């Protein structure tokens, strides 16, 4: 959030930010709605990720982490897990319209299990030097990179509650964690179908 000052050193002013009120259930209780979401990691065949050191998680930063670890030689890994969603309504703070709504993952049930519908593989064949949208490097020795997309789906007026695509048929889900941990000794790369890191679909590999 940007702030403004007349001249250095800067001073901080609080920016406009809508506040949100829940319209269904309450945080920490199993209200709202639940859906199965999936997360996946698409590897190249040569990726060190496929050496039984990779964990796929369906989780979010608010809730419970869970996941399972791939087996040796797996090159396409995915997991399903149950997520609880809540709907929120803006209270109109800071002059924002009070009738905007958002739907957000409230917490994960922590019951990730092997997925049943595999996401698609990396169409660019690799990240480093292949993906026109660029890539993120993840250093070896247990470097990790997370693009947290456990965020809101904004609905605006005339909303449809829970108008979310849960990724069951479209590949990787876009609104939960994609968490990559590199247990190899060299760089691994993470890329996606749009400029990183705000990417609906992520891929990874050793190239």
């Amino acid at each position, binding site marked *: 959030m940007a*702030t403004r000052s007349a001249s250095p050193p800067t001073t901080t002013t609080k920016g406009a*930010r809508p506040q949100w009120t829940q319209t269904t259930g309450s945080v920490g209780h199993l209200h709202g709605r639940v859906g199965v979401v999936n997360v996946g990691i698409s590897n190249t065949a040569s990726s060190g990720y496929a050496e039984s050191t990779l964990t796929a998680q369906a989780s979010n930063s608010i809730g419970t982490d869970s996941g399972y670890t791939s087996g040796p030689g797996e090159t396409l890994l995915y997991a399903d897990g149950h997520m609880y969603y809540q709907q929120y309504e803006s209270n109109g703070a800071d002059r924002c319209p009070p009738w905007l709504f958002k739907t957000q993952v409230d917490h994960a049930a922590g019951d990730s299990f092997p997925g049943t519908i595999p996401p698609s593989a990396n169409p660019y064949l690799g990240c480093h030097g292949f993906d026109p949208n660029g890539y993120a490097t993840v250093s070896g*020795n247990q470097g*990790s990179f997370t693009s947290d997309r456990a965020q809101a789906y904004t609905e605006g007026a005339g909303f449809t509650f829970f108008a979310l695509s849960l990724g069951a048929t479209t590949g990787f889900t876009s609104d939960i964690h994609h968490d990559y941990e590199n247990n190899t000794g060299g760089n691994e790369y993470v890329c996606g179908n749009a400029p990183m890191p705000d990417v609906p679909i992520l891929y990874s590999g050793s190239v």
Partner: protein
Amino acid sequence: MPDRSTRRRYVAAAVAAGLTGLCDCGGAAQGPLTGLASGGLPVVDAGSLQLAPGQSADFTAFVVNKTHTPATLMSASVIPVGGGSGYPTGRLIHLAVSLNKSFPGAGSGWPPSGGIKVEPMREAKIGFGQTDIIFGITGKTLFRDYVVAGLRITYLFQGQSYSVTAWSVGVACVRPARLLRRASHPSCSAITGRIHSKVDHMAGLS
């Protein structure tokens, strides 16, 4: 409460004005740079890395120029993780801007490896859209885990000085060099989830 048609008009006006970010609808005057956002809320990415004492752990923060007029980046400082995280704040030792849309999610050493092209951040002119600001932090004490919540970036735009917050969790776990390649060593990334949650809260996501 306005009726539905009135609501729609308000929303349409907001969209037409390019205010779909929801966070800028009528607040105090702000500069043209914002942190990366999705659906009107900040995107908070996170990286973690084990490193030897004094080595640079490289992460990336993201800003977006909403105008087609360049802004000039001037300086940056790390944002400590609030809320009594219990971890010391990493010391900022490097700053650069990516030139090829690629960046370290969690990299070691400086300049960044893996084909990432950079230029110094200071006085870099950034145009419309996303800019990846790469930063290196370090710590000197073995077995301590150093954390940051992101960068506070100062820039010039049309003669005015502004600053912008870019959330990006960085966790640098300082370990002896002999342990860095041991897969059985406890993972530094386990800390990252807890810090990430705290920074999500700082960013207004929870």
